Each structure stands twice: as structure tokens, then as C-alpha cells.
């Protein structure tokens, strides 16, 4: 790599030729404030927060898009620089709905942090506020433009990371607003509810639809039997909301926390992830051996499902008919579990804790009432659960270790890895291989499908049959695979697609990191590593070995793809308009 030498604040710094002044400064331990900059996602030089003085240049330069050059002399901390940043920030604040104490992002807001760091104590520019839009019609995402600072991090994420592109800056100048076409609601445009825009937003302008009040109400109702399921990815992220390290494992704290909130039973979505593998593995074998539609594409990710319905309807028949683990779980709670315990399903209130905003939408879909009731009543994101715990005065770190309840709390490592990209594929391969070959796998770690590469491909030899698999996470990556399938260029048998980058560990309902934190570590990788550690430490690591799943088939379902499974665990999706 070709290097150049420059001086920043009098310090000699070596930096790769293609790097920016911001990068070089950060490497030298010099902090330059940023706001619109989101590494790898939004590098557009829009907000002017990162200005610096460059010797020989007439005006201040935006360091986040300024390439380094040999002999360059940069000053990041002069009176002119400080004043310029302050003016920029004060102008932003003057058109901002400053209600920090009641804001969803209070204490986790980049604008707030900057105001503190730059020492803003009053705003010199009182002025008119621009017209704001508040849009809470979507079951997943709420937009509040009164807090938007027009950084466009959400726009770049929606367009480039997710290749969905339903929000853009509309109008110009003072009127500019980040919104869908014709200022419609996100509910009326082909948004897939992924919530990646929320993770990108530095402030409280985008947030999840808060459903905590519904759960508080149910918990307070003595007539209701309130059960909860927790997704695989929660156990490696919830701790972050309580000051824990990134990707800290809190599996055993979760049951204690949820019991203290008042849930009657604390179950685990990992159980129904194992069940999904039984159904989906069987479906794959059936299609492979009986000339069914291939490639089979996984269907666990409701953001991906909606994306497929809008953008790739011609591939809907390739989708697995399996519902997501959340919805399989929901369907069983109000049937199997209700019968087994003799509890009236009408009196069961079913809550799930998900890393995902799209699942809030999923649980309301008409396909998801197969128990005769809404199978899952309320979906809470990781962030909402953490808010409830804080409100109840429960500190996760101080709780004793506890176990999930039986039988729907019993799971294997295969269920756990659903939380990371490649996990569903790996779990399926573990089971499919052993069912087909009737041999035990020597090495159950299919590391080819792990990791943060956007698209992963592998060929697995199952007793002489070569199975081509592909894994994609993030919808722009998914497009790469799907376009190949559409054109007939690819010869895949089995594809895993997760809507969110990193899979569920990077879900839109997970704890939000600042741009600076995201630059320093790949949070998806950290959380995924934790997921694989959870898997390694499980006694059972293959879905077909889950005893509770085996009992479920014996007592109730009969066999995978059987009649009952079809009624409760499978569904079909339909084409949706793009415009």
C-alpha cells in the first residue's frame, strides 16, 4: 500500500494514500467530530461537522471526504474550526425538536453527545422550525422528522445496503424532508420493515413502533396466561443495554429477567428453530428427491419475505413454505401447549422478544392466525424489552442464572445459530446430512457458511450428492444471488437469505451503536462469535436430537410435513405491487 506523510496538529502521521484526513486523524488518536458520516454506508460530506483547516486552502474542508496527500498540513482544533462546528451544530439544534428527556434516544443520541462535547450551552439562532411529519402508521417503523438532521444515513442504508429505496430527501432547502414519495406513510410504500434505517439514524427521528404498553397491560391482567419466547439473537445483545460488553452472553439471565417482569412461562424460540429445521430439512429433501422447485430459499426472515413479495414475486415458489420460527412457535402455543396444559387458548397472551422490527409486521399478517387466534399477540424488540426491564428496576447484571421453562424452552445449538448469517443453512446441513446418510457427522461446523462476507457459497457432499448452497445477508447482497437464480446462471440447490446485514444479530430491533462505535468494531461479527460460542457450549447441537421436538412429533404433529404441520407450520406468500 502506498503511504503518504502528513502532519495533523503538528504530529507527523503516515496514512495510506487512498485514506481520508478523518481516517488518518483517528488513527493518530485525534478525534474529529462527525455526524453524517457512517463508515462504508454514508460518506457524502453533507453536515460539515468534521471541518478542519488545511494549510493553503482558503476555506475549511470536510475531513470525512478529504483525501490525504503528501506534505499536507492539517489543523483540527483552531478557533475558526471550533467556531464553525459550533455554528453548524447550533443551526441544527435551532430547527430541532429538543425534547431530550422524553426522547427514545436520550443518552444514546449523537446530536446530544456532540452538543455536550462541543460545549454548546445556548443556541444563538432562534428561528422558525420546519414543518414536521409524524408517521406511525407502519406496524414497525415510526418516523418523526421534527428530530431529523438530514444526515441521510437512513437514505443510504435503505437504498444501498438494503436496495429497497423507499425514503429520500423530498423538496429542497428549508422544506427538505426525508420521506417516502408524496410524503406517504411507510405503510403505503414497499418498505420491508427491516429497521436498518433506525440503526443508522444518529438521533430519534426513526424508531420502532413501541408496543410495550400492550405487554404491561397483559401482564397486569390476572385472567391471562402470558407466555414469552425469546429469539436466538437476544441472548448475545440484551446485555449491551445494561452496560455489558458487545456480544456478551446473557442466556441464563433472560429467564430470570422475564420471570421478574411477570411472565407465566418463559420459552425459547430456539426450540421452534429446531422445529423449523425438521420441517425445512424435510421439505428440502422432498424437493431434491422428487423434482420439486429448486433452489429452495429459506423463509425465516419476514423482511426478506416482504422483499420477495414486492421485488422478486417470480421466486415466491422457491420460498420454503415454512413459517418463521416465531410464527411456528405462536401457532403451537395456542394449540399444542394449550391442549397439553388444559389452558383455554383464548386466555393465552403470546409475546415474543425479537431482534427485529419486521416481525412486528409479520405477527399481524392474515397468514398468521392458524390457531384460530392471532398466533403471536405482540412482538417486542430487544430495545423495548430493555426499556421494560429498566422501568421495572430490573438490572440484568444482578440477576441469578435461571433456565427456560419446559417443554418449549428446550433447544439445541443448531437453534441458537439461527441468529447469525449462515446459521439456518448450517443447522439444516447438520440435520439433512445425518438423515440422508444415517451417519454421524465427524465435524458439525460448516464454517464455509459462517462469517461476514455478503455472499457465501459452498458445495457439500451428502453421500455422493453434491449440494450447492449459497448464503446472503442484507438485501443488496441477496439481490446478487437472486438475479443469478432468475437468469438461470446459478446452479444452487439451497439458499439462505437474511434481510439484515449479519443476520438477526444485526437486526433492526437490536441495541443501537453510534457511528464511532460501528467504525471501531464490527458489532455483527462480535455478536455472531458469541452465538457460535453459545452453540459450542450446548450439550445437543443438532435439531433432530432435540428431545422436546421429538416428543412434539410423537404426541401431536405426527411427522414433518404431515397434515398438522401443514395446517400450523406452513404457509404461502403472495405477490405485492411495487408502486
Amino acid at each position: 500500500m502506498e503511504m503518504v506523510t502528513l502532519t495533523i496538529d503538528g504530529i507527523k502521521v503516515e496514512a495510506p494514500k487512498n485514506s481520508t484526513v478523518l481516517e488518518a486523524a483517528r488513527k493518530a488518536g485525534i478525534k474529529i467530530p462527525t455526524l453524517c458520516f457512517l463508515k462504508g454506508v454514508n460518506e457524502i460530506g453533507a453536515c460539515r461537522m468534521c471541518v478542519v483547516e488545511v494549510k493553503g486552502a482558503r476555506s475549511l474542508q470536510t475531513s470525512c471526504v478529504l483525501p490525504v496527500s503528501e506534505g499536507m498540513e492539517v489543523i483540527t482544533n483552531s478557533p475558526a474550526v471550533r467556531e464553525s462546528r459550533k455554528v453548524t451544530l447550533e443551526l441544527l439544534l435551532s430547527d430541532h425538536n429538543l425534547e431530550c428527556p422524553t426522547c427514545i434516544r436520550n443518552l444514546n443520541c449523537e446530536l446530544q453527545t456532540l452538543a455536550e462535547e462541543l460545549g454548546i450551552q445556548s443556541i444563538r439562532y432562534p428561528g422558525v422550525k420546519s414543518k414536521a411529519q409524524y408517521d406511525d402508521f407502519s406496524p414497525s417503523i415510526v418516523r418523526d422528522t421534527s428530530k431529523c438532521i438530514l444526515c441521510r444515513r437512513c437514505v443510504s442504508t435503505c437504498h444501498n445496503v438494503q436496495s429497497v429505496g423507499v425514503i429520500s430527501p423530498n423538496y429542497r432547502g428549508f422544506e427538505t424532508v426525508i420521506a417516502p414519495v408524496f410524503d406517504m406513510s411507510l405503510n403505503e410504500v414497499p418498505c420491508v420493515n427491516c429497521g436498518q434505517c433506525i440503526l443508522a439514524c444518529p438521533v430519534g427521528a426513526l424508531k420502532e413502533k413501541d408496543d410495550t404498553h400492550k405487554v404491561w397491560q397483559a401482564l397486569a391482567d390476572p385472567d391471562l396466561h402470558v407466555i414469552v419466547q425469546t429469539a436466538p439473537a437476544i441472548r448475545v445483545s440484551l446485555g449491551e443495554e445494561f452496560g455489558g460488553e458487545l456480544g456478551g452472553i446473557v442466556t441464563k439471565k433472560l429467564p430470570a429477567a422475564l420471570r421478574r417482569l411477570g411472565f407465566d412461562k418463559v420459552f425459547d424460540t430456539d426450540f421452534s428453530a429446531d422445529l423449523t429445521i425438521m420441517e425445512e430439512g424435510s421439505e428440502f429433501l422432498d424437493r431434491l428427491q422428487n423434482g420439486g422447485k429448486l433452489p429452495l430459499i429459506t423463509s425465516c426472515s419476514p423482511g426478506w419475505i416482504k422483499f420477495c413479495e414486492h421485488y422478486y414475486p417470480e421466486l415466491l415458489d422457491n420460498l420454503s413454505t415454512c413459517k418463521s420460527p416465531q410464527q411456528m412457535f405462536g401457532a403451537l402455543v395456542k394449540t399444542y401447549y394449550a391442549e397439553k396444559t388444559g389452558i383455554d387458548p383464548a386466555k393465552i397472551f403470546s409475546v415474543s422478544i425479537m431482534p427485529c422490527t419486521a416481525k412486528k409486521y409479520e405477527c399481524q399478517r392474515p397468514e398468521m392466525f392458524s390457531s384460530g387466534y392471532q398466533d403471536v399477540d405482540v412482538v417486542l424488540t430487544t430495545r423495548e424489552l430493555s426499556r421494560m426491564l429498566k422501568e421495572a428496576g430490573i438490572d440484568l447484571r444482578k440477576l441469578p442464572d435461571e433456565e427456560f421453562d419446559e417443554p418449549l424452552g428446550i433447544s439445541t445449538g443448531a437453534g441458537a445459530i439461527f441468529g447469525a448469517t449462515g446459521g439456518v443453512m448450517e443447522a439444516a446441513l447438520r440435520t439433512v446430512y445425518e438423515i440422508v446418510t444415517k451417519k454421524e457427522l465427524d465435524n458439525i461446523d460448516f464454517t464455509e457458511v459462517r462469517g461476514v462476507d455478503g455472499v457465501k457459497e459452498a458445495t457439500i457432499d451428502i453421500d455422493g450428492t453434491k449440494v450447492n448452497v449459497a448464503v446472503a445477508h442484507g438485501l443488496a447482497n441477496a439481490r446478487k444471488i437472486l438475479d443469478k437464480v432468475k437468469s438461470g446462471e446459478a446452479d444452487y440447490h439451497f439458499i439462505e437469505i437474511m434481510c439484515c446485514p449479519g443476520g438477526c444479530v444485526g437486526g433492526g430491533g437490536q441495541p443501537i451503536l453510534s457511528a464511532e462505535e460501528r467504525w471501531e468494531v464490527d458489532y455483527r461479527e462480535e455478536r455472531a462469535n458469541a452465538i457460535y460460542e453459545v452453540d459450542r457450549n450446548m450439550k445437543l447441537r443438532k435439531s433432530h436430537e432435540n428431545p422436546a421436538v421429538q416428543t412434539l412429533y410423537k404426541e401431536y404433529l405426527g411427522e414433518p410435513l404431515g397434515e398438522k404441520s401443514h395446517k400450523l407450520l406452513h404457509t404461502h406468500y403472495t405477490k405485492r405491487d411495487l408502486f
Partner: protein
Amino acid sequence: MAVALNQQQDFIEKLNKIEDMLKKYQGKRSALIQALQEAQAIMGYLPIEVQKLVAENLGVTLSEVYSTITFYSFFNLKPIGKYHIRVCLGTACYVRGAEKVLDRLKTELGIEVGDTTDDLKFTLDGCRCIGACGLAPAIIVNDEVYGRLTPDKIPEILKKFE
């Protein structure tokens, strides 16, 4: 009734024309502004139906199309009337009562700024200095300037276009 039907037919014909025109821009994302200009030349404005055609043919999102249209002032989301009235809101006109003139126009025409009358006759807009400060307050109807206005002179001017 007949008029409405004619209008609808006319609309569909123009849509077809636009579709033909867009053939040369298949998949050309970078031609967005040009394609929109040509589409507007045919339709006169850019309703959602046209925006969808442009998005589909060029392979851009509807959101990008809308964003672009609303950014550039030469694109119109709504039809423009036969007579396009623009009221100068530049400093000179403003201090001499442009707002009162504008208000009178609004009441006379029964529309807000940016709108067009139902009979597609008049469109009302505000604009920046039109270089007729000596005649302030001034308005411009299509290409013709009317100056030294008072609200009371408005009905008389509008009569000319009946």
C-alpha cells in the same frame, strides 16, 4: 361528461407517448433528469402515473424519481394552467404590498399558491425578483408583466383572460 372523457383519453394517449419515448432510456439510471424533462414536455406535468413509468423503465426507485422532481423547480407535480400567474415576492415588491396582491389573487381564483384552477385556466405561484422592481409590486402572467398593482386592480386583469 364528454369533457371528462376527452380529458381521460388525452391523458392515456400521452401516457402511451411517454412509454414509447422511454424505450430509449431502458435501464439508464443516469438519464433520469432528461427522461423527466421529455415526459413533462409531453404531459405538461409529472403525475404519479408518469413517475411510475419513468421509474420502471429506467430501473430507479419511485422514491428517487419523486425526490428529483421535487428538488428541481422546473418540474411540476400538478398540471399548469393556460395562464401561469407568478407573483413577485422579491424585496421591492414585498415591501410595496405583494402579499396583499397575492391574497387577492387567491380569493379571486379560489386556489392556493402552487395550485391550478379546476378548468385548467390559471396556475398561481410566487417567485423571486423578476427584474421589474421599478414597477413594484409586479406579477407576470405567462410572459407579460403587470406592474404598480393594487389588490383592486386584480379582477380587471383577470378579466382579460376570460
